[in-house]
Structure formats: structure tokens, C-alpha cells
């Protein structure tokens, strides 16, 4: 067996364990549903429900999730940049690398300040 494939196999083991562990932990934590069917409906004088309990959610939750993904895409570019930064320092190119990243982050920061000003970074009222 290659030594290089041991971490891969460990990773495969973790991946296989993930759904099982996640669902089992969720099952052990959530309250068990003991009543079923007609027992869930209001008794005699109660008004029968017309729709489910979950109501309408503010669209801001979706905006928030979308913004999270957008900032995360930018973060993906930071990873190769950060890994190579030591090499650029050795090649005396670190200042340029820093400027490029500051420009790139600055463009996104414009958007961030715009979002802040219009109150999209706070939760729903």
C-alpha cells in the first residue's frame, strides 16, 4: 500500500461516516414524535388548521445566504494567494501581490459598504 493513499482512505472513511453520524446525531437530539395522524389535529372545539405552521420568511434570509456565497468565492482566491505569498516575499514581489489583492478586495468592499448603507447586512425587522 502506498503511504500517500493512507490519508485518502482516512478521508474516504470520514466521508462515508458523515451521513450516518449526522442523521444519527440528529435523531438522538430531536424530540421523538409520539403522536400521529388524527391526534395531531385540535380536539373537538378547536379550529382545524388551514395550512402548515411554517409561515412566510423574510427574503432577507436568501439575500444573506447569497451574499455569503459571493464573499466565499472571493475567499477562494485568497487561498492560492496566501499559499504563494511566502514565495513572492522571497522574490521581492510581495508589495505587488499585496496591491493586487487590496484592489480586488477593495472592489468588493465598495459593495459591502453599499450593502451596509442600505441595511442589507442586518437581520430582518
Amino acid at each position, binding site marked *: 500500500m502506498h503511504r500517500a*493513499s493512507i490519508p485518502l482512505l482516512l478521508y474516504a472513511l470520514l466521508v462515508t461516516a458523515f451521513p450516518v453520524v449526522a442523521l444519527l446525531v440528529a435523531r438522538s437530539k430531536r424530540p421523538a414524535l409520539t403522536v400521529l395522524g388524527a391526534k395531531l389535529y385540535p380536539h373537538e372545539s378547536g379550529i382545524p388548521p388551514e395550512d402548515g405552521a411554517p409561515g412566510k420568511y423574510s427574503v432577507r434570509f436568501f439575500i444573506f445566504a447569497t451574499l455569503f456565497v459571493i464573499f466565499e468565492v472571493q475567499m477562494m482566491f485568497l487561498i492560492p494567494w496566501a*499559499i*504563494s505569498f511566502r514565495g513572492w516575499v522571497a522574490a521581492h514581489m510581495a508589495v505587488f501581490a499585496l496591491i493586487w489583492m487590496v484592489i480586488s478586495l477593495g472592489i468588493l468592499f465598495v459593495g459591502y459598504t453599499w450593502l451596509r448603507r442600505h441595511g442589507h447586512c442586518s437581520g430582518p425587522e
Partner: protein
Amino acid sequence: MPDSVVFYIFAVIAVVTAALMVTRRNAWHGAVCLITTLLATAGIFLQLHAGFLFIVQIILYVSGIMVLFVFVIMCVNLNVAMQQMKFARQKWVALMVCVVLVAQLALIIWSLRKIPSQGLPVFVSVAPERVPPTTQEVAKSLFGPYLLSFEIVSVMLLVAMIGAVALTKKKM
């Protein structure tokens, strides 16, 4: 252990969980299965020594995109019966898409077999020390010839950010 065995382990995990994702009635179970599929695909990237793609797959897809999915499952009222009716009508379209996809894959494998020096990347085993550190290579081209594209990506993300907000506004 040869690389192809590791590949098949991840491939089996990915295919099985992908099938489970489609067949589960519970949207939450589907989401968990999709996360496992994405993780297994990340494993294939790792096995191909594509470290950067592995990081992207984990951070962007498993954590980022899946957060979006889970938000949607949580916030959207899932009327089970209506969903089933909606999907039942797409059965033939789905079948057609599947046939086209399988044909494409078969064509790729068949055409690769004709070229003697090449094959599926899985069967080409490269010693790990001979593979260049891919993340550094990505950085080298990202901050070299593709620097302008990299900066334009930031502008594109800015447009996406404003667009996402604008879509939800009643009037600008």
C-alpha cells in the same frame, strides 16, 4: 494500493449517495446525501493531486452552496404532495436528459480508447513527488497572465451582490 482503487472507492460513494439523494422523499436526507456526494467528488480531486480543486469543492460547495440549499429547504414551505405532482410531469424530460448524458459519457470513453497513449485520467498513475504543487501553479497564473481577469472577477462579484439585492426589491 494503486490510485485507481482509491478512485473507485470515492466513485462508489459518490454514485451511491447521488442515487440516494434523488430517491429520498425527505428533503433533509437528500441534502445530507448531496453533501456526501460533493465530499466524495472532492476526494477524487484529491486523488488526482488537484489540491486547489479539493479546497474549492469543500469550502465553496460543501459549505457555501449547501448553506444556500439548506436555507431554501428551511424557509420554503415544502408541500410534499404538490412537489411530487410537479416532478412526476418531468419524468420524460429527465429520462431524455439521462439518455443524452449517458451517450456523451459513453462517447468520451469510447473515443479515448482509440488513442493508445491516453486513457481516462484515473488510469494514469503519477508519482506524487512528480506532480507540481497545483495551488501554487494556480496562483502563479492567477496573478501572472490572468491578473486582469482576476480583478474583473471582483467586479463580477460586485455586480452579483447588487443584482441579488436588486432582485428582491419591489422598486429600485
